[in-house]
């Protein structure tokens, strides 16, 4: 059974300081007017109120990651030899201040990168050394729809520790054995039944604030309307850029390229199914040349292909794809609209 502790709000910075000695901490900081997950540094403005632009997937699936460095050398004169050298640093990490939807997004990555199929060593090493301290969401945004996709503002799924704000203090509940070690130390006192009750009520109040719509039967319906004109209408205004996919907590597509000539590196970088180059084949043929094909694919992936294969939605309802879309394409409207086509 998990531990339940309480920590005063002003103690949070000191707690992070002690954790920082043993862990690399990634938390939402405000720089240049933008709240985003960055490495902890004393004095940076921690912002737990606003939503971070992109999700904390940076911690275990960074936008740019060197797979290995290569160097073309010479054994003897006449043939060139490639020496590879890859170092994946062993680094304890803590993602502090993620929302419950972000943590739930982690499940998609676990399924894909270290599920039943191929195990991605780069992801797994970081995943096993990363702890998530999520924070319950008491003021969801008008674009949030976590409750419609099987989540909730205080759903502990994927989290090691769930903090629930109780005005001047936080309730800290652990959901994994490793998490217990983080709650040692003088910052914490035991939580009282009153604290637990208050937290439960606050979380329930937050849940009420959210409008929930049903996604039953969406997977099958999406398959049925694959050829429909519906997608042309929905994609009419889309610009086919990568803002939705690069800020999404569950998008895991990437590109592998070799950079450099005689010395260089193989590097993994984010890629987006919304870019036409994503499906451009060497022959020049592109199975998804038009943006309605691509938008249809993105929505189907989240609500049809992934659920059919892994029996879970790969959308966590964080609403980033809606907030950061330059033309406000709304995936909720597309999914609900699909059910009536």
């Amino acid at each position, binding site marked *: 059974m998990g531990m339940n502790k309480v920590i005063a709000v002003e103690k949070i910075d000191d707690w992070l300081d002690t954790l920082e000695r043993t862990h690399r901490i990634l938390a939402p900081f405000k720089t240049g007017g933008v709240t985003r997950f960055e490495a902890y540094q004393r004095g940076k403005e921690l912002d737990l109120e606003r939503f971070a632009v992109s999700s904390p997937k940076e911690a275990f699936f960074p936008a740019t990651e060197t797979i290995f460095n290569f160097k073309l050398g010479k054994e003897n004169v006449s043939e060139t030899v490639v020496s590879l050298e890859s170092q994946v640093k062993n680094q304890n990490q803590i993602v502090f201040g993620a929302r419950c939807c972000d943590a739930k997004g982690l499940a998609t990555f676990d399924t894909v990168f270290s599920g039943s199929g191929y195990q991605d060593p780069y992801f797994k090493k970081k995943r096993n050394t990363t702890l998530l301290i999520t924070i319950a969401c008491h003021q969801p945004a008008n674009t949030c729809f976590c409750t419609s996709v099987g989540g909730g503002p205080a759903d502990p799924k994927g989290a090691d520790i769930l903090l629930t704000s109780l005005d001047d203090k936080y309730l800290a509940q652990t959901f994994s054995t490793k998490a217990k070690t983080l709650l040692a130390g003088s910052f914490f006192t035991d939580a009282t039944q009153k604290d637990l009750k208050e937290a439960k009520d606050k979380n329930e109040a937050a849940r009420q604030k959210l409008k929930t719509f049903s996604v039953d039967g969406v997977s099958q319906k999406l398959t049925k309307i694959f050829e429909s004109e519906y997608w042309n209408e929905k994609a009419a205004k889309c610009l086919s850029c990568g803002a939705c996919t690069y800020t999404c907590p569950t998008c895991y597509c990437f590109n592998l390229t070799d950079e450099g000539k005689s010395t260089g590196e193989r590097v993994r970088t984010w890629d*987006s199914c919304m870019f036409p180059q994503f499906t451009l084949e060497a022959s020049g043929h592109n199975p998804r040349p*038009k943006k309605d094909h691509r938008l249809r694919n993105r929505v189907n992936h989240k609500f049809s292909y992934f659920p059919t294969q892994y029996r879970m939605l790969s959308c966590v309802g964080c609403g980033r794809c809606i907030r950061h879309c330059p033309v406000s394409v709304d995936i909720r409207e597309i999914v609900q609209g699909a059910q009536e086509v």
Partner: protein
Amino acid sequence: MAGKPIEMRNKKTKEQLENLKTQVEETLSQVDFVIGYAKGYDVLHPTPLFVRSTKDAQALIWDDFCINNLATYLPSQKRPGGLFHPHEKIGLVVKGCDSRAVIQLLQEGIIDRENFKIIGISCQGKVDVKKLKNRVPIERVESAEIKEGSIELTVDSRGQKYPLEEVLYSKCLSCEYPTPLIYDRLVGGEGSLRSKGPKEFAQDPYHDVEEFEKKGVNERLDFWEQEFSRCLRCYACRDICPFCYCQFECIAQTRIPHWLSQKTASKENKFFHMFRAMHLAGRCTECGECERACPVDLPLLLLHKKMNKKVSELFGYRSGINPKLRPPLTIFQPEEKNIEEERWE
């Protein structure tokens, strides 16, 4: 509060909306669809609406937040096979600043005048949602209304008020063309809006560029180093730009030629934004959509305004004003008035 004089500004906006709906319905007969604005996921974020029937037209809105430069959808007519709406005739709701983009696209010959109809609409300046975002958690906004020269928002059921000149787009504060420079029909009449619009708040459009130019070279280097470290390379700035119509073949993502990798290192991000500014030299009409679209709020308009300032100093050219002029970097003069050869003696 009956009897209270309705805000002059809102009265104008409402009249324009009614007029807009009829103009759009009339245009429907000449085009395949008309692009206007509809209500988005909240009051601050209108979204482009593709009107194909009079029923669709009812969803049209017009208010102080309709900011999208819809001209970005025009270049798609040119190429069947690849881009958005090959060979369809498009109707477009176009504000003053957007109309400069339409004219520049005509100057570049990427669109044909008879393939689209412009419904011009004179504008009183739009509210910059990012300026609101820095003041109040807009993701929980419930209502927003203009009253006596200020905007009143209710967030978490608490009222907030800000004077308009604090929250309008900076481009609106120095707007020179509140009435579109090109249109087939004009909503809201031209006469009454001949006044320069919100001129009374006017600032010199390039004051921010001049401020930045005063900084030392290392200070500027560090500034861009720091800003571009945030760039995700999602290419929203490129894909929303009316002039980046070669977005699907962009050299930011090709291997032949291989100018840069997809690594999000600050140096590579900087090179991408620098060469985009070069490609837009003498073309960008400063609509500011790239800055609005950027998820990490990079000061992109500053880049392109600097380039346009340089181009106007060198060639006295301002983009998207005169449809007959050819863009400055597609022509040359045997003797350039403002370019002296460097002296080496």
